[in-house]
């Protein structure tokens, strides 16, 4: 397929991408469909196949006729107008919207799975703690809400945290800390710390290491990929973002 701009595409990829006449689409006038106040559907006219696509989530569009006079327009039938998209194209249905050809694919490569995976992977990306960036609350606002709402809290103290049932878990800012030679791990709240100095101070206190002995310990951490790194080799922000757990080790020499 070639664009009307007269430029040929590179050799078609394995799964051909739909190409469009950039000129004609851009000129489409939506206003002409607005003769009346009724917000009727044929604002954009689609072929019958796209009809199915629009019902991918089975939203019953006819029930949203509570809109201001746009009732008549909200029905599937209105899609049967002159097609906006070229009828001759192979517009696949529903879940195969992303699969632009009928060629079989590996399941891994199937883009329709990918969209699904993309939305659910957002959940897993955050290690099961919920969708990344949702609800859209800035990071430093999240910290506020961990306070006990009686106005007297001086330190952030987190109530019991987990809610692993696919819902949104409370955002835990606690990480495990182990010290070399000590069998029991502790937990530390990262949200109250803003620098390595502060963090180290807290850890020294936590494990009862005196100021004199401080130098014989090094702070290391394990990041998301499982690598073990020296905490002070990276900037604070990188450290905070990638760390999974902490370990205090005795420094050699």
């Amino acid at each position, binding site marked *: 397929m070639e*664009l009307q*701009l007269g430029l040929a595409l590179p050799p078609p*990829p*394995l*799964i051909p991408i*739909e*190409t*469009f006449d*950039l000129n004609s*689409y*851009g000129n489409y006038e939506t206003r002409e469909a*607005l003769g009346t106040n009724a*917000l009727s*559907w044929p604002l*954009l006219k*689609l072929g019958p196949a*796209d009809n199915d*696509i*629009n019902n*991918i989530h089975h*939203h019953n*569009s006819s*029930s*949203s006729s*509570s*809109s*201001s006079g746009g009732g008549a327009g*909200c029905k599937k039938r209105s899609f049967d107008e002159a097609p906006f*998209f070229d009828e001759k194209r192979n517009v696949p249905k529903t879940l195969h*919207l*992303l699969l632009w050809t009928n060629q079989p694919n590996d399941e891994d*490569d199937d*883009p329709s799975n*990918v*969209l699904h995976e*993309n939305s659910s992977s957002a959940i897993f990306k955050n290690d099961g703690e919920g969708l*990344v*960036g*949702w*609800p*859209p*609350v*800035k990071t*430093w*606002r*999240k910290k*506020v*809400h961990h*306070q006990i*709402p009686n*106005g*007297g*809290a001086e330190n952030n103290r987190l109530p019991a945290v987990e*809610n692993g049932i696919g819902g*949104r*878990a409370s955002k835990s800012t606690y990480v495990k800390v182990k010290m070399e030679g000590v069998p029991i791990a502790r937990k530390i709240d990262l949200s109250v710390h*803003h620098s390595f*100095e502060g963090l180290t101070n807290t850890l020294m206190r936590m494990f009862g290491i005196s100021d004199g002995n401080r130098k014989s310990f090094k702070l290391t951490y394990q990041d998301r990929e499982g690598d073990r790194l020296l905490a002070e080799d990276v900037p604070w*922000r*990188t450290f905070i973002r990638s760390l999974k757990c902490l370990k205090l080790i005795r420094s050699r020499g």
Partner: protein
Amino acid sequence: MQKEMAYSFPDEVLKHVFSFIQSDKDRNAVSLVCKSWYEIERWCRRKVFIGNCYAVSPRMVIRRFPEVRSIELKGKPHFADFNLVPDGWGGYVLQWIAEMAGAYPWLGEIRLKRMVVTDESLELIAKSFKNFKVLVLFSCEGFSTDGLAAIAASCKNLRELDLRESEVDDLSGHWLAQFPETCTSLVSLNISCLGSDEVSFSALERLVDRCPNLRSLQLNRAVTLDKIANILRRAPQLVDFGTGNYAAELQPDVFSNLAGAFSSCKELKSLSGFWDVVPAYLPALYSICPRLTSLNLSYATIQSPDLIKLVSHCPRLQRLLVLDYVEDSGLEELASSCKDLQELRVFPSDPFGVEPNVSLTEQGLVAVSLGCPKLQSVLYFCRRMSNAALVTIAQNCPNLTRFRLCIIEPKTPDYLTLDPLDAGFGAIVEHCKDLRRLSLSGLLTDHVFEYIGTYGKKLEMLSVAFAGDSDLGLHHVLSGCESLRKLEIRDCPFGDKALLANAAKLETMRSLWMSSCAVSFGACKLLGQKMPKLNVEVIDETEPPDSRPESYPVDKLYIYKSVAGPRFDMPPFVWSMDEAVKILH
């Protein structure tokens, strides 16, 4: 005859006339009249606003406007606020500072938003600009109190230092002591974002003491309640004040001292801060409440009855930021007490909880819309909504310019009818003809986008999440919203069709962000190839997009218009589609 008229004014006269023209839009229009006006205008432009630091290069700006005194730059896309933009993406200001250091010795004002500012940049600012007056770092990161120390020490006439919402590596509070004794020029100081426990309070007190023009002061959380009175007594001329911690054991002398200090501030109109509030100390504010026009209680974890009491003392309130502890009852009180209210923001106290923890519903917002006819700007987090409520709000508040609704659970339908919320948001765009900014949430089909495309003619910024059914939705927006500048979309089933069909539209916008959608890598390449005025960037932290088939959707996509070409500071997980094309050919 007309030609002569244009030349009959000496340049000085034109310059003088142009000096009354402040807005960028007007200045840009002036510069298009004729060549000589272009020349005169560019030499006398003093203020430059760059909404996307990658849209133009420092050199280009300097070349065109040689005498700039004030610059404003924005870096990362808005969704960076919610961790959707990976660290290291970009937005570095250093190169700008370096180039301006040579070109603009008289640069006096730098305002940055969502940019990465290093200590090196701050030190360079301190060294390079002898007349430096204003530094605003809004939602910036990458610097420490060492950089601030350099600014404090060197900038002899510093008027404004505003670090709002920035992430600062707080190494020590002693940077405040770096302000020389001769510095008496401060008008505005916002250190509310600093986390340190050791703000050098004595240095702060002395600073406040010697700056008689200080109008705006926002302390950080580390400053305790008992210190507030000291500060206020040294600065009774304050107009805008942010407390630190507002908690202490209730002691009568502390209370009366505090109340007295507040009442001595006759100009105080705006309050914020209020971390860790002890409600018993709120009445200390009552003397100034009648004058208050702005109140930010969004950190105050106080319950509705206390909030109601406070708010009922503030009849002149125009702006309120509050947590959802205010509840519907609190908002009803707000609606009856504060008839001048223009802006309301209600934040969630428990954004990740599955069950509602407070009784805040759509009713609260409906009540405010009914009681506050001047309402213009809304940001509202809640857990349920109905089309009926949205229609009511739209009809009550036709003057809304910003409407951002976040229903916490994605794809939540109208709780009464279980319908999508298309009609409700449709009513908002239809009735609010001056709407410039809109954020959607809840269950939404392509219909809502049809409404938006039809009615949202003044809409400049649209945020969409978990909405729509097909490319039709995106097409409605791109083809209908004439004023659209910024569009940010996440987790919507929008793919190649609408994007490619409206490619030209993208050149009229500042930027488009799409993440977790269905735009294929091939489409991105095509856009990058066909649209040289756009930078098309694909973000993928897991693997290179060309290691998969071209039809595979990209993880994140950021497209913006630029005259500077592809940028040079992209991290490994950002791919420019311009480069990809170069490699192909």
